């Protein structure tokens, strides 16, 4: 199954060139972050007592740590689901909310995940002063920020494309908004949502490991978990412990996959709308089969089903229908103008707050430095994507055209994408230190270590999906060698490659915060780049620099997506889609 990239396929009212509206929304988001920092700053000092849970490097503690990490992950995903359902529905039901919410989501997904925790930590610590609960919530929130955006895009996209006949029949049967949501909208969105949740999970393992060690300014908190274990192992230069941690991680991801997502994905195929069963995309799960066959399990689930039905059949609706005048006034262009005006004023105000906050200590030359560093990171991302593509595309095509290989390689590639690449960093750092090579160059591959697999498994999927008659026609006309690659294979997988590369590039930007600075014992390596800049600014508690860095990076990501990936994506969808 190809990876959908919902944020790009979402039809949106604006075009590539960023508009004034985009700028306003950008100001709104960055300003809101500034306000959070602003509010938290005052109360930061009394909280500055360090809380460090002692982490034992004894492997026998690993199952417990793994459990803690897994629960955090679960918390993040539950939160993401709730957010997705509410935010996506709001954006779909209200035209005015949509104009704000969807661009906001676009900006949010461009903000590096690792920086969110920095900004929100203060807020969460204030919620529960003196206890670790605040830090736990901050970690969960970080996982949430790594998962929620593309799930929300997927859900919103599904809501927008609910088949018209099913929508009509729901109206005609007078199902009402509440029941319509549960019988039509949510089931219709389920396959995409679950698939995206699984993809988000893959990415989130990377961050869950990092979120357990919090080093922000004077605050040092360690939460028990696999990530904290690894970080302790790094501090003690204990390679054996890192090996154990990797092994545990492997087990955890496999279990999550087998016990949660396989069954969910297999189950969600029931909600596919195309009435003809499509061949080739079989999703199977032994666990689901077991539940569907076992009487006892069915009996266990029956009360749950009854509760669900009762819930769905609740009569929830507006108590009073607003009168026609109210509706007309609400829909009028004047209200639109008022709404636009309100958004503009609020955006400008919070944007000004952010500006004032940043310019309190920083000047134009700082901005120039940051943009320069951003350029360096951009260069790294580009070069890495090109290199990874040159390497993986031919391999992916080769594998994809051999069904046996493909069915074996696909899960492996997906698994590799889920494996938190940060666990490998210590090994790379030791090598760099040992051989005295330039960290500016040799730290870079870490950025794409975890996300290159998206390119591989999308290309495999693309090659497997190539129509066999096309391939047979090519071979019957003796299209071979370079001609075959240029005219048959590459155009055939291109749309899939683009989706994979977009995901890989987004992941690389995110990973730059972790990859441009790396540690092994007392040795810390630095590469020059925006990721390292943001990371350093936040660890030293310089939120002014941190905020400016994050703003610039998200600007880079947004522009890169708009001006490069989206046109490429649309070109490939228009010209090279094989259907």
């Amino acid at each position, binding site marked *: 199954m190809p990876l959908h990239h919902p944020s790009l396929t979402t039809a949106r009212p604006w075009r590539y060139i960023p508009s004034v509206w985009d700028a306003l929304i950008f100001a709104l988001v960055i300003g809101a972050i500034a306000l959070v920092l602003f509010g938290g700053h005052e109360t930061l000092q009394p909280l500055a007592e360090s809380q460090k849970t002692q982490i034992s490097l004894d492997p026998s503690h690993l199952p417990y740590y793994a459990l803690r990490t897994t629960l955090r992950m679960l918390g993040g995903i539950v939160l993401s689901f709730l957010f997705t359902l509410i935010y996506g529905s709001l954006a779909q039901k209200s035209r005015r909310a949509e104009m704000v919410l969807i661009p906001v989501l676009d900006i949010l997904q461009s903000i590096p995940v690792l920086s969110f925790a920095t900004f929100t930590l203060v807020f969460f610590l204030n919620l529960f002063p003196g206890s670790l609960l605040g830090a736990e919530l901050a970690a969960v929130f970080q996982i949430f920020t790594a998962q929620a955006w593309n799930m929300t895009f997927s859900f919103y996209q599904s809501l927008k494309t609910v088949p018209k*006949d099913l929508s009509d*029949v729901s109206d005609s*049967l007078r*199902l009402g908004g509440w029941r319509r949501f549960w019988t039509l909208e949510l*089931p219709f969105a389920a396959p995409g949502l679950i698939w995206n949740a699984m993809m988000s999970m893959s990415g989130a393992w990377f961050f869950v490991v990092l979120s357990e060690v919090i080093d922000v300014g004077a605050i040092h908190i360690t939460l028990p978990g696999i990530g904290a274990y690894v970080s302790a192992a790094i501090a003690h230069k204990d390679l054996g412990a890192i090996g154990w941690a990797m092994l545990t991680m492997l087990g955890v991801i496999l279990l999550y996959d087998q016990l949660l997502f396989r069954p969910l994905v297999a189950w969600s195929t029931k909600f596919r709308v195309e009435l003809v069963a499509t061949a080739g995309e079989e999703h199977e799960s032994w666990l689901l089969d077991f539940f569907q066959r076992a009487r006892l399990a069915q009996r266990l689930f029956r009360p749950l089903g009854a509760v669900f039905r009762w819930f769905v059949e609740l009569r929830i609706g507006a108590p009073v229908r607003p009168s026609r005048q109210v509706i007309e006034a609400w829909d009028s262009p004047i209200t639109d103008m008022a709404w636009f005006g309100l958004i503009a004023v609020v955006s400008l105000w919070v944007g000004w707050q952010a500006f004032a906050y940043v310019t309190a200590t920083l000047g134009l030359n700082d901005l120039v430095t940051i943009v320069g560093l951003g350029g360096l990171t951009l260069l790294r991302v580009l070069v890495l994507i090109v290199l990874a593509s040159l390497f993986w595309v031919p391999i992916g095509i080769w594998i994809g055209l051999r069904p046996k290989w493909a069915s074996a390689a696909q899960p492996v590639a997906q698994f590799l994408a889920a494996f938190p690449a940060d666990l490998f960093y210590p090994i790379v750092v030791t090598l760099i230190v040992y051989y005295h090579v330039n960290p500016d160059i040799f730290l870079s591959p870490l950025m794409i270590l975890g996300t290159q697999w998206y390119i591989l498994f999308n290309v495999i999927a693309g090659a497997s999906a190539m129509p066999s008659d096309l391939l047979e026609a090519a071979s019957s006309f003796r299209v071979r060698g370079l001609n075959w690659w240029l005219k048959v294979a590459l155009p055939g997988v291109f749309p899939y490659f683009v989706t994979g590369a977009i995901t890989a590039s987004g992941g690389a930007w995110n990973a730059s915060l972790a990859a441009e600075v790396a540690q092994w014992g007392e040795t810390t390596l630095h590469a020059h780049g925006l990721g390292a800049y943001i990371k350093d600014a936040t660890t030293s508690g310089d939120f002014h620099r941190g905020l400016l860095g994050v703003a610039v990076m998200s600007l880079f990501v947004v522009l890169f997506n708009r001006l490069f990936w989206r046109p490429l994506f649309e070109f490939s969808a228009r010209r090279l889609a094989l259907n």
Partner: protein
Amino acid sequence: MVASQLAPAPSRQQPGEVMLDVQNVCQAYSKGSASDLLVLDGVNLQLREGEIVGLLGRSGSGKSSLLRIIAGLTRPKKGQVTWQGQPIDGPPKGIAMVFQSFALFPWLTVLENVEIGLEPLGVPASERRSRSLQAIDLIGLDGFENAYPKELSGGMRQRVGFARGLVVHPKLLLMDEPFSALDVLTAETLRTDLIDLWMEGKLPLRSILLVTHNIEEAVLMCDRVVIFSSNPGRIAAEIPIDLPHPRNRSEPAFRQLVDDIYGRMTRPTERPAATPHAPAPDAQGSGIGMTLPNVSTNLLAGLMEALMQSPFDGKADLPEIADELTMEVDELFPLAETLQLLAFAVVEHGDIRLTDDGRRFVDEDVDARKKRFREHLMAHVPIAAAIRRVLDERSSHRAPYRRFSEELEDFMSEEFAEETLAAVIDWGRYAELFAYDEQSQSFSLEDPA
């Protein structure tokens, strides 16, 4: 058949009091900047108890829009619809709808799909179950209660659609081309089953309103057929059908009615847009504002060839040739009208006749055909001539797509402009009148050879 022995229930014969009253309904779709596109213009229609009424028209004649208005799914721009004395404002009680695409929830079983209509009515669960099973039984679906729609054939799926419509015990059943997604045999079985149930008085219904583009289907099922003309949708004629059920397609009276309706639907004055030779009232100067159906040149040539062959020898009855080519009205009419527009054929009173040029075209080889097609395109399709003229006048011999789409959008909706240009591009390419490059979206005189 059971129904033939039974005397039809009296209420089925004499339509009773008015249930539904459509008064002067107009519907328009706004297309943003330019003026609105009128799809329904001053439609008046009454529906009485005990009758099956068919709305017959071409695609784009607004008949489905009218059905959606009656179903309460959309609001008319002007006019009013009253249902049992109450103005319709949202889906009314007592009206159920059957959809062309069946509109079944794929994740619900047959039983659940049927039950779902009863939930909002507040029917208790046990009664929901028994009523649904009854409806499933009535419509011939027993044994399939626990199947999912994707396990069923098209005909069985539409039966679920009927059961879902009937289970709420509606007084009026709206059907939007309910048989057109089915194969011929299945559609026929379903139609007869439905008519039998209706004649036997086993349906809870008082009346049925059927939208269709299939003339025979309308004559087969309805007590009254309302014919719509297109652009904008207006009621062109109302024809009562007094034939007793079950009706026989080969009966002379039946054929006569079908022929008559074909004739009415092809009356030249009904579609001013497609007859530039007549002084059309809305002729926008050059006639550029004519909407064109996107029919392929292969089909045009194929129809002309079929017309030349025996038994037609250049002239055919539209129902007959439709039958011969197994084409529906919706597919055949645009072809026939395009041939008429290009002066390769004349369509009148339900007949189509090749002109002399049309006959010559059939006998010619590829290059001569292209040349003739090019001449006719230049002479009779103003937008094609305009494109060529602009390309000739410009020194670069290039012009962007937008240059013409914007001009067309002064006369028609964006959608129609797109279809019209798609047609012209296809015809122009075939005639080698101009070239079009999809990627740069521009016309040119470049010959790729």
